């Protein structure tokens, strides 16, 4: 089993919170605001999706939650702790897979468990289970260079999931995958999320993906949150039904409008 994760005291049903955060970067062309006075809450057990054009601050928001950037202004707390302290209960999957080229797929999945101090016997079994889950059982002994981009992405997914983190940050994790693989991974992700009451922040530029997966969508624009949408549909959801649904279509078009207008 994973190290027991008790809900931190005093979270008030909030898994993570960003309050009035400004994240300013010093660049060669002057200061750039990745986040410009952003406040958001990730509720416990919530599936939150961030959408927005590229450069709108989505990745920066995840990085701030993971403690990779220290906010220029404002407050960040994760499980009622500073982000760095909450990292053992955090899984972060980047847009790029960041696999270790000198380890096989299986050993890459084991890596996250090793670093977190899981016992040897346990981590081998867990890693196998999760590789199986993402459909890569046959490729356990392949090195990353011997896998397709989509397969590599799935190894990264298994590595992020295997330690069973309480909070999952996922930055466009499925953008390199074909539609079929993506749908089956959606199912697995939602199943895991529902079973373990994880809280998820998921970044995508695919609005159908956003509507199928989320409880709530935040639309980012120029480092600000332009609008919030609640997605009320019952689960399990089906992509085909959702795209045919009237309310969903309205939401889809409204977000599109927001993203395209200047």
């Amino acid at each position, binding site marked *: 089993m994973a190290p027991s994760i008790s809900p931190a005291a005093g979270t008030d049903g909030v898994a993570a919170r960003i309050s009035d955060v400004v994240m300013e970067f010093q660049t060669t062309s002057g200061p750039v605001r990745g986040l410009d006075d952003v406040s958001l809450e990730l509720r416990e057990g919530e599936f939150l999706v961030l959408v927005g054009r590229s450069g709108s601050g989505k990745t920066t928001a995840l990085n701030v939650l993971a403690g990779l950037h220290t906010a220029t202004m404002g407050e960040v707390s994760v499980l009622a702790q500073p982000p760095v302290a909450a990292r053992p209960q955090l899984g972060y999957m980047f847009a790029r897979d*960041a696999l270790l080229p000198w380890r096989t797929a299986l050993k890459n999945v084991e*890596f*996250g468990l090793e*670093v977190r101090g899981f016992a040897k016997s346990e981590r081998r079994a867990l890693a196998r289970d999760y590789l199986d889950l993402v459909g890569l059982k046959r490729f356990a002994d392949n090195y990353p260079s011997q896998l397709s981009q989509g397969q590599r992405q799935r190894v990264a997914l298994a590595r992020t999931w295997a330690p069973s983190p309480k909070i999952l940050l996922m930055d466009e994790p499925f953008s390199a995958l074909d539609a079929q693989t993506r749908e089956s991974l959606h199912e697995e992700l939602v199943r895991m999320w529902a079973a373990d009451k994880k809280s998820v922040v998921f970044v995508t530029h695919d609005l159908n993906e956003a509507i199928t997966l989320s409880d709530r969508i935040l639309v980012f624009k120029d480092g600000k949150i332009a609008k919030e949408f609640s997605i009320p549909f019952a689960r399990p959801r089906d992509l085909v039904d959702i795209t045919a649904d009237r309310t969903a279509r309205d939401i889809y078009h409204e977000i599109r409008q927001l993203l395209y207008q200047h």
Partner: protein
Amino acid sequence: MVAAAGSSGLKGKAGRPSHRNGARLKRLAGQIGVGIAFLALWQLVYMSGVVKPLISRSPGQVFWFFVQIATDGTLLPALYSTVEATVVAFVLASFVGVVIGIGLGLFPKVEELLDPYISAFNAMPRIAFAPVFILLFGVSQAAKIALAFSVVVFILMVNARAGIRTVDRDIRLMVTVMNISKRDMFMKILLPSAVPSIFAGLRLGIIYSLLGVVTSEILASRVGLGQLIAGYAGTFQLEGVYAVCIVLAVIASLLNAGMALLERYLLGARAL
């Protein structure tokens, strides 16, 4: 079955072995062809007389000289002495160079202080030290080893340091989010990241070790391939100089191939 050298596209399911062996045979035949063409050209140049007779020798003369020194007990002791010094210098310098290089890679503050001196020392033509080493160690194996060491240690130091420094940015972020311990960072990320760069250094290092040893032998030594070259050149036996040079070329190729095999054995299918 030895894997083909062009391993860049290694994908696990390579072509059928029979097919690949066919390609290998073809390539080998081509390479032998080039060798024969070279010998023919050499013979032609020799016969045409465009090269001064003082240094001009035919392939046949060089070959018979080689047979003579190989059978009269001249070549083997020299060969042994040179290869021994090369290997000893290489192993010592690699170990010391890798350790120091990793240390410098891990502690940039220390490196900052030492870097100008390391660069300056490395820029000095090391052959200038050869007389010093000979005075220090006498005309001995140790003098040869010292010169080769002083060349090779820097190659490994520079490569190991670069290897430790160039960890993929995404990997760095990934392990940061995992709150990785210093120990795991070193053992599981930095060291494996540095391996390709260290191997590149080892491949260069073994050749430079041979170079250093032979240089030292040419300047002053009792026994060794470099000493043979110096001796034959001094008595205008150019066929001897050429024969030993060819022996050196063969040794260098073998050392290189040995390193490549070792690398493939240690790294296995980890394609880079």
